[in-house]
């Protein structure tokens, strides 16, 4: 598996999510705002499940 191919776009999203959560907690000092990253984290979980499924399908072939 080519890790860079799989992970670079996900890393780009994670950079944004982590940066925004840190801004919420450290600069705005309202940790509740950081919970707004949860929907996108669920999307990334779905992407992980999708990647595992596609890899298994390719391994069967």
């Amino acid at each position, binding site marked *: 598996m080519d890790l*860079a*191919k799989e992970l*670079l*776009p*996900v*890393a*780009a*999203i994670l*950079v*944004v*999510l982590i*940066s*925004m*959560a840190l*801004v*919420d907690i450290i*600069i*705005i*000092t*309202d940790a509740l*705002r*950081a919970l*707004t*990253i949860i*929907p*996108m984290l669920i*999307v*990334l979980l*779905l*992407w992980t*499940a*999708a*990647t595992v*499924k*596609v890899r298994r399908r390719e391994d069967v072939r």
Partner: protein
Amino acid sequence: MYAEIVTLTVMLGCLLCIIHSWLYRSHWETVAFFVGGFVFGIVRENLVALMPQLYTYPDHPFYIGAAPLMMGFGWSASFYACWIISGRMVEAFAPSLSERWWGVPLISAINSGLLSIPVEVAAGASQTQWWIWPASAMKVLWEMPAIVPYGWAGAAFLFIVFFQTAMRRENTPRKNALTFIVTTLIIIIIHLVYLITIRTIIVILT
């Protein structure tokens, strides 16, 4: 305040996307997507600056006209990252969608709308004010107006549909890339008309 944070975040995210595209897609596709994204971001935000019902950008480190430099990178980074992960999700869970022209762009639009939420919630606070919506905008989550996820989603859908269409044309890759970059000007107009329509619907419903 602290606009350097969002500028560096967006530019780092975009750099990762450009590296991915350069390594795993054709070079002309990469040029088309990210130069097109830069043109889209800078021209669009200069037009937005002329529309008082939308937002303004105070206090950014670098501008091109009225547009912060980061907007030349931000839109394309969100479009690209959401497009790639959405393609994988469609491939795994709904492969029949990938045969439809709107399939992957639609999932990319939904994901882009979800990505907008943490960005806008951080951007609008009094401590940051990376961009400021007018008082008349209907706020739904801290300072985030209701229109925001629809705006990001609509932009992602239009950009990806036009990109896919341009890249499938039977021309040279260079000509397809140049065609798409010029086409981004049309995407901007369609997207701004769409935004005003959504805003009007929200005003009517509330």
